[in-house]
């Protein structure tokens, strides 16, 4: 593990940096924002590239379709809003004008998960993975920290196609390093207790911090465990997972996400088990058909059973 002092930062900050860095290299990157330039961290892009930034006002449906038109003119548009509104409110525009049209628009969905905190359930997107992964042509990525968000953002621009990036509001521990190799076709192991792993925990997004603490706690209690960071949700790197499970001797998969248990990462893995005839047992941990509410991140994680202690207990109970 990294021994240096723990650095914390919201993943959305990494998105903002990645956008600017990509835009310096790729002059056809344009940015659109729906009145949330500061909190979606599009401010830096707007300041450095004022001619390539379009403020569309509080109009997320329009933003998605305008971006499609810009893409049709040869640009790579990046649109940013809170995920509740984009893709929450503008799903059909994303389906028809971006995915059906196959236009390379990058959708940055901010303020996902319970870690939005005090804004409450209306603003905590817990359904966005389901909304986006069901769409043909759409790629879905979900960085676990700001460093990975920067790297993924640059890769999305380098490989233009309809894409969704899931981002979080609150500052969280940095789990990866800039020197880590990142690509769009593999996920990454954040922790392993030994060369074998009876249990593989697969987490997506910044809840990986809690999952890592849980993995360490389980290891201390004698469970052989690995933690896979699912930064790429679609197309899911299936062969990598199959290889890891064979190599580690995995008997149990646990998914951890700040998303509804239905339709998100847990569903992805359940579908893979069914489609491939895998024998592993599966525990899906997420929000169980409920809306969020106001509170601190710590209070909410605890209330919804996503904090490190709850994760540890649930996994221990499942493996018996």
């Amino acid at each position, binding site marked *: 593990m990294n021994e240096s002092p723990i650095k914390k930062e919201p993943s959305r900050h990494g998105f903002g940096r990645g956008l600017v860095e990509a835009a310096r290299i790729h002059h056809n990157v344009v940015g659109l924002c729906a009145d949330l330039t500061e909190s979606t961290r599009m401010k830096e892009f707007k300041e450095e590239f004022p001619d390539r930034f379009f403020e569309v006002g509080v109009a997320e449906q329009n933003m*998605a379709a305008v971006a499609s038109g810009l893409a*049709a003119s040869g640009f790579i548009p990046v649109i940013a809003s809170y995920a509740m509104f984009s893709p929450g409110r503008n799903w059909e525009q994303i389906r028809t*004008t971006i995915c059906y049209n196959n236009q390379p628009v990058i959708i940055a969905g901010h303020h996902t998960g319970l870690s939005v905190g005090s804004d409450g359930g209306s603003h905590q997107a817990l359904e966005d993975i389901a909304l986006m992964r069901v769409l043909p042509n759409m790629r879905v990525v979900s960085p676990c920290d700001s460093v990975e968000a920067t790297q993924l953002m640059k890769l999305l621009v380098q490989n233009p196609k309809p894409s969704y990036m899931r981002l979080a509001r609150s500052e969280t521990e940095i789990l990866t390093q800039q020197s880590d190799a990142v690509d769009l076709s593999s996920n990454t192991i954040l922790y392993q207790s030994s060369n074998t792993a009876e249990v593989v925990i697969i987490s997506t997004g910044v809840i990986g911090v809690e999952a890592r603490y849980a993995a360490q706690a389980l290891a201390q209690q004698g469970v052989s465990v690995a933690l896979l960071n699912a930064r790429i949700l679609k197309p899911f790197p299936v062969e990598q997972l199959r290889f890891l499970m064979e190599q580690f001797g995995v008997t149990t998969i646990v998914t951890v996400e700040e998303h509804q248990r239905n339709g998100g990462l847990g569903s992805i893995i359940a579908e893979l088990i069914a489609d491939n005839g895998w024998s592993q047992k599966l525990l899906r941990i997420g929000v169980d058909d409920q809306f969020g509410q106001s509170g601190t991140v710590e209070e909410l994680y605890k209330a919804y059973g996503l904090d490190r202690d709850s994760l540890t207990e649930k996994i221990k109970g499942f493996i018996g």
Partner: protein
Amino acid sequence: MISYDRVQELKIIAARVRESIIEMLVSAGSGHTAGPLGFTDVLVALYFQTMKHNPKNPSWEHRDRFLLSHGHICPALYATMAHAGYFSKAELLTLRSFGSRLQGHPHREYLPGIETSSGPLGCGISQGVGMALGLQLQKNPARVFVGISDGELQEGNTWEALMLAAHYKLTNFVIILDRNHIQIDGFTENIVGLDPVADKMRAFNYEVAEVDGHNFEELEKVLHQKNTSGRPLFVIAHTTPGKGVKAFENKFEWHGKPPVDKEAYDALASLRSLEGALVAPHHH
């Protein structure tokens, strides 16, 4: 000014496009009748008179763009494009069939020359705004034309897009409203009234022009002129649903169904006699 002879030519082309539309709908056995016939003259004006485009090179960078926001009237667009030389007229009869490039609603990736997939209403203006902004950024002088239905003025997305185009003062951007007063459930003013449309658009900072959507002189005049107003142009084209076939005109029952048997035969006969009448004074 457009010459008398040119107007007669455009009328003949429009009659032939309408014949194709009837043949396509009969062949497909489903689809919309009134809307395509009503917007045919506008499309003929655009593709045969106004727009700079090259049917042999549909992705030509400097082409004027036309987006059909109300994708359900695509038989008129397909027929106009075929008559303009984008693809063979024989292919028109594949409309709505399995494997056809002529999908029930237009799909960009299936048919070159289709600028965007459409059908779900209310987002054509948005995409046109995106294209117009992009063209400005690229210093490309091409213009963007978006055809919209009156029914889709009821969509919220339409008004978001209208506000943005006016905010950015897009003068390379033209919206053409197919004002035929019908939608699936009845007359627009009985469903959710839209009038006064012209006043609404002026209030939204548009340069507004009202034309007879079947009059090529009027269409030419508003569509061809350089827009020096500093505001985007909103053209209200008053159209007659089912135009060209007396039995279909102004009847919303023909919004969403195709003609069959005698209805189709009579429609084609009347269009052909019209075409003959138009040819007569010019060529004899």
